[in-house]
């Protein structure tokens, strides 16, 4: 079994790094860690980076998850190969670009590009945001799935993810105490469905709602509150159509052994208990 510790970073291809930088700093509120030749590294917490834009095709999207150590990485590679997932062993240069000690890459059953990493770098300096959005850290991703039931089996049986709750056939899965680190959403093709950053308080969610609205950033869902995790949220659209989420107050699962996933119906109130309706997201919109 592969033991995921936490989500580590997202890498996104972008044809226009300048636009990506503009959005990430002026709207999203991340801190520029470093501008490489073809890479833009962005921070959201005490890690040296949690989001990296690379010059290239916006369809190139990768999520990195941290595993314990190099031995775990070797075991993971063996496990995945045995299951028929082609495993790419990261070169030293590629690892450098990701600011990790070592990594492997593979595709999940839907075709999402996943990397498992060892010893991702932290920064000695604290995170200092480019705008006061109240971001406290990168927290989870939504992944497209062409077959959520199959992919749930992959993530839970191979990668030690546990289902916290389900909305219809969408599993919200945890790899640590936080309610969910991976959410699978049914979609016709692979891809990252959304990227979440936690903020300090519901004030920040509401403030950002007014802030982003004023700057004509498309709000696609919220402000709202998820009845599953309890989080107050706001989803909005960034460059290349990528959806970003701010949220606050995600529950933690207190008792790992006895937690039983709850089943919510696939309907708007299961996604928002305040009554906001998703617009331009692949969720029910009755």
């Amino acid at each position: 079994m592969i033991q995921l510790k936490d989500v580590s970073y997202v890498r996104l291809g972008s044809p226009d790094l300048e636009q990506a930088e503009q959005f990430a700093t002026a709207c999203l509120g991340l801190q520029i860690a470093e501008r490489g030749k073809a890479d833009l590294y962005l921070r959201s917490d005490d890690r040296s980076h949690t989001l990296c834009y690379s010059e290239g095709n916006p369809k190139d999207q990768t999520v990195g998850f941290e595993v314990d150590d190099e031995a775990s990485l070797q075991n993971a590679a063996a496990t995945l190969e045995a299951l028929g997932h082609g495993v790419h062993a990261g070169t030293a240069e590629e690892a450098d670009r990701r600011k990790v000690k070592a990594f492997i890459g593979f595709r999940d059953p839907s075709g999402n590009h996943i990397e498992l990493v060892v010893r991702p770098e932290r920064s000695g300096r604290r995170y200092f945001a480019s705008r006061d959005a109240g971001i406290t850290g990168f927290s989870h991703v939504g992944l497209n799935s062409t077959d959520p039931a199959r992919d749930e089996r992959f993530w839970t049986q191979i990668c030690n993810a546990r289902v916290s709750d389900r909305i219809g056939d969408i599993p919200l899965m945890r790899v640590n105490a936080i309610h969910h680190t991976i959410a699978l959403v049914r979609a016709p093709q692979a891809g990252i469905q959304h990227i979440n950053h936690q903020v300090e308080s519901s004030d920040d969610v509401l403030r950002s709602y007014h802030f982003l609205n004023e700057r004509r950033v498309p709000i696609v869902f919220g402000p709202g509150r998820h009845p599953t995790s309890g989080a107050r949220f706001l989803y909005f659209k960034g460059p290349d159509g990528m959806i970003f989420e701010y949220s606050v107050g995600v529950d933690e699962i207190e008792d790992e052994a006895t937690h039983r996933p709850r089943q919510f119906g696939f309907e708007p109130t299961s996604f928002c208990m305040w009554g906001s309706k998703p617009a331009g997201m692949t969720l029910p919109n009755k």
Partner: protein
Amino acid sequence: MIAVLNGTKPLITSVCYVRYAVKEPQACARFVSEIFGLQQVASQDGEVAFRSDDRFRTVSLSRDQADGASIGIEAWDDAALQEIGERLRAQGFAVRPASPDECQQRYVQSALLADDASGNRIDLVTRPTRSGRRYFPPRDAGIVQFQGVGLRSIDHARDLAFWRLLGAEVADWVGDIAYLRIDHLHHRIALYPSQRPGLLYAAFEVEALDQIMQNSYYMQENQVKIVQGPGRQPASQQIFLHVEGPDGLILSYVTGTAEAGGRPRPPRQFPPTASSLCNWGSESKGVSELGAQS
């Protein structure tokens, strides 16, 4: 704290009702009950009355433009009422005792009917009637109780003097907007400089942010005008949503109002800017008193 305590008892203890004079009581009544979520109670003498908590009624609507509008302020007892009457008269405010009929109409035991300097009618009342039955609203808006009022003021120095005679204190200023404290909460009454007198809004406390937001989406779905919010007042931390019904009737949902601390402090001055009125960034739509320019 409250400087003019009558011994250990304050002169006034609560804002206990609002009476509106409206042109279309029926349309307003539908808005107040079905949309906003107050419980309609039996009407009498052409008045439509509503409950919001364990009081017998906190809102009434009537067509009577001459005597239908006022704000009820609960005084501690008849001695406090007498003291208030003397103080107001001494400062030249119009005050007269309410007739038994007027008391009955207001569901109170005794009352002094006063006018502030702007001409707002303020009823100083004792023993407003409570109900033995619990509040049961027509829809789950999450209303906990009638919370307070915003008043328009055309003579803010004299109006402020009026409230100070009753023992109210300024908790904070935003420009010349005064938040007035009469009990443990940051404020129950807010005076907004304006071109005309009148009740600006009546505010109802809801359980939590969840209900503010649920009501916000409910209003959008029902095409009710949101004049401001969801927002948060920096001075009081109060989260608010102001909505407008027929006849320009503004009702508000509020939650999270700060409690006054144990130690007295002078009122803080905030500049008359949008961010002093809402630190989330909501702006007033069409109600100048709620905006920064007024």
